[in-house]
């Protein structure tokens, strides 16, 4: 049983990984805001200076891509696997 298998199959360890994941997400979003306020780096576009724009836009993009693609797939694009064979 390798290292990865131990981490994923043991519920206690898996819960710990999950906790660290959420903590690091919060840390990254916070870091984004702090960097924006402390170091005034050069921006070209207005929304780049919105607080935690990267994080929020990432989440919104992810949800939008999944929802829109699945919708398009269901109503139009997806066909049976043997569609081209018949």
């Amino acid at each position: 049983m390798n290292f990865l298998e131990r981490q994923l199959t043991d519920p206690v360890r898996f819960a710990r990984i999950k906790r660290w994941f959420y903590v690091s997400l919060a840390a990254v979003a916070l870091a984004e805001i702090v960097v924006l306020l402390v170091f005034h780096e050069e921006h070209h576009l207005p929304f780049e200076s919105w607080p935690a724009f990267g994080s929020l836009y990432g989440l919104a993009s992810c949800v939008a891509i999944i929802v829109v693609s699945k919708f398009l797939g269901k109503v139009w694009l997806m066909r049976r696997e043997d569609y081209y064979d018949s």
Partner: protein
Amino acid sequence: MILDFSKLEWMHPGLLLILGAWVLPLLKGRVKRVAMLLLPAAALGVCVCLSMTPEPELVLGRVDNLSLIFSCIFSIMAFLGMVYALHVDDDVQHVTALTYAGGALGVTFAADLLTLYVFWELMAISSVLLVWQRREKSAAAAGFRYLMVHIFGGLILLAGIVLYSHENGGELAFEAMKPFAEGAGWGPALILVAFLLNAAVPPLGAWLPDAYPEATVTGAVFMTAFTTKSAVYVLIRGFAGTELLVWLGAAMAIYGVVYAVLENDTRRLLAYHIISQVGYMVCAVGIGTALAINGASAHAFAHILYKALLFMGAGAVLQVTGLRKLSEMGGLYKTMPITLWLYMIGAFAISAVPLFSGFVSKSMIVSAAGEEGRQWIFLMLTLASAGTFLHTGLKLPYYMFFGKDSGVRGKEPPVNMLVAMGLAAAACVLIGVFPGLLYQLLPNDVVYHPYTLHHVTSTLGMLGFTALGFFLLLKHLDPERKVSLDTDWFYRRGSAAFIALTQRPLVRLEASFVGEIYEFVMRRLVLGIAGLLREFDTRVVDSTAVGVGRLTQTFSQILRTGVSGNAQHYGLIMAAGVLALLALAMFVI
């Protein structure tokens, strides 16, 4: 002996591969494997030498920073691909793969449009063999479709070249063109369409996800690199700053991502992400600033390495398990940990995670869009970045290596495949950690710093929250056993529908009009003439023959009366003859 670099003009690295490839079938065993690696290494060596020569020259070629960065990465890729294919015992694949790579190098160094066209077609024809060599029915069909599309594209290119040359007084040099300028004519526009077809820009790009997943395990790795990226190169050369490309590229980046959500076939999912990534490059070509062109070149360089690595990973799984559908996989991390980790390096690189190659190349393009104040393009490209991480970095490894355990147990692939993946992974990390290595090869002198605090934190935030979205919506992402319609529908099903639609009028036309004509021509005309000929035959030809026969018969019957076979009659005739001669002699003389 010191190499004289100025004498290199006769040694075209593309021809080195194309001609050298034919040596491989003559060799065996270890010598052959050494030659397989030596050929691309030599091509890379020539490229490096050319880059160190002050004023390099090449027969039929042009050497500058732009052609050198692309030729270097093409040679490196040919080498990595050959390492990956070392265990394959199939000369056809090796020869065609090297010819294909040689064709790409030929395109890169082409100074005139006809040379470009020749190498362009060579790439199409050699690469289709990498699809056919999988020797399966679906591969044969996909190969034919691939060839058909590329022959069509080649014809458009040729037509464009002929028109361009005609419009410019016989000019054939390959320089920047203005397809939408006043009085530009059709030539540059047709050339642009042919380039866009090879760059897999929708709606001309369906050939890519159709053919690449059908290629052999090792052939697909070569295919990911050359066709689309040589198209990016010629777009930079010919059409930098064309506004249309900005929007086509950004739309293309999202288009690939949308299809990747729906895809179940591992290599087809990755193929849609080639389209998405090439979209960034096409967009950068359209923006056309010095930074954007550097970004397109750098991204092509980094992309070839990580995309090859990803295809190598998916190919390794296909090789050892025989599986290509995500819905049939799961739990492979237990038995293929090395493949998993190497794949993940490629996945981090394509997702532009800091310290991996995609971060230092993709960000140049996004920053170039930002510097030009193109807000929508910036947002579209960033959205596509989230999609890239979602699929290549999360969905594919999740369902392939983790997820529900399918019970399938693979083992690690052959060592040479792992070595090739290791080399590509090392390059991805090296470029990510030391971006200067890549930046010094770029065509324009622009100072760019990828590792700013803002850029690193916003990228990490974007990626982290994409991952959050993925885990929240995981149950909606389960791969479905479906295929998705793309523009290849038009030549796969559209043609059948067209035939069904036109069948009835065609049948009617055939029965009435064509049938009548047939009736008239066959019955009246052909049979009539045949009757006349028969009459002529019986009357003239036959009676002549019969007449001659009768004449001979009559003549021989007359002769027969004299030929009785009786010796006394013959003696009498001889005596009569002698008397007649004597009488003649007496009276005449």
